[in-house]
């Protein structure tokens, strides 16, 4: 049976946006399963908050992801004692494992992982989420000026971290 145009649009929208949502979620969670659940819940919630049938704007999904990640972290903190002991599977790769960029990918993932959350969120939303500073501000509930300054400081910190790794 042929897909209706709406379903095709939905699939196309998912293929375009799911990688960056999942990247953001992976950075905010402790396991791949949590990240995937987070994305699914955020996409559904953002979609349901729309009155029309159009896919939700990426900024709205990121905002929902951010809020839900905070809720998840709070729940995780409460059960941290018993969960820390459990064996966690190796974290999924954040970036595409292209042979040419493999070293850069690993370097950046390590550096991003060591970056404070407040910088990493803004850099991820700006570079891979392709949001404006105004959208980032809305998603993270911070002033736009703060988002811009965190981006600058974050890039400087990231450069420092990558230099340390390379050295």
């Amino acid at each position: 049976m042929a897909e209706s145009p709406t379903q095709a649009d939905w699939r196309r929208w998912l293929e375009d946006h799911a990688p960056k949502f999942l990247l953001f979620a992976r950075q905010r969670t402790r396991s791949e399963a949590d990240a995937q659940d987070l994305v699914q819940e955020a996409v559904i919630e953002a979609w349901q908050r729309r009155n029309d049938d159009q896919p939700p704007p990426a900024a709205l999904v990121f905002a929902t992801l951010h809020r839900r990640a905070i809720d998840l972290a709070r729940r995780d903190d409460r059960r941290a004692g018993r969960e820390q002991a459990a064996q966690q599977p190796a974290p999924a790769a954040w970036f595409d494992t292209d042979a040419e960029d493999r070293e850069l990918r690993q370097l950046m993932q390590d550096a991003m992982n060591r970056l404070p959350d407040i910088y990493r969120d803004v850099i991820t939303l700006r570079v891979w989420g392709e949001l404006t500073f105004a959208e980032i501000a809305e998603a993270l509930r911070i002033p736009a000026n703060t988002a811009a300054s965190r981006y600058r400081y974050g890039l400087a910190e990231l450069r420092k971290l990558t230099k340390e790794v390379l050295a």
Partner: protein
Amino acid sequence: MNDSDRKLLEVELRRLKPAAPPAEFLARLAAAPPAPQPPAIAQSRPAQRAIGLRILLRWLATATAAVAVALLLAWPSATPPPRPAHLPALAALAPLQADDVEIDHRLVSAFDAVARLPDGVPVRLRCREWVDNVVLRDSAQGVEVEQRTPQLEIIPVRLETY
């Protein structure tokens, strides 16, 4: 970190693409609700019937409310209050011609009270309660109209103190 360094780093970062989600996760997302709302023309007949019924019910509810309001507003003029049987219909009456008028001025109660003026001087208040009673009679039509008006009379009287 200057601007050129920053731009260089941004270019490096943009070279990295977010890892593609696992196929099964994408399939789960695609299948997960919210299922995209199909266009209206693709709706099944029961669904269309349900929507039609809902619209009809909405209109009926609105119309019923409007009729109820209209009835409430029109009720006093449509159904005048019941009149005592012994009174003739007002429309059938000719203008009243009082052939007997009775005016009564009755004292209902009288009492005295003592109060103090702002400067401390005591004053006695002589209070009288009256009722003015006016009765108009039209013996030709057998109509009697009675009006009572209460009145309160207060007369201050100097209270002699020694």
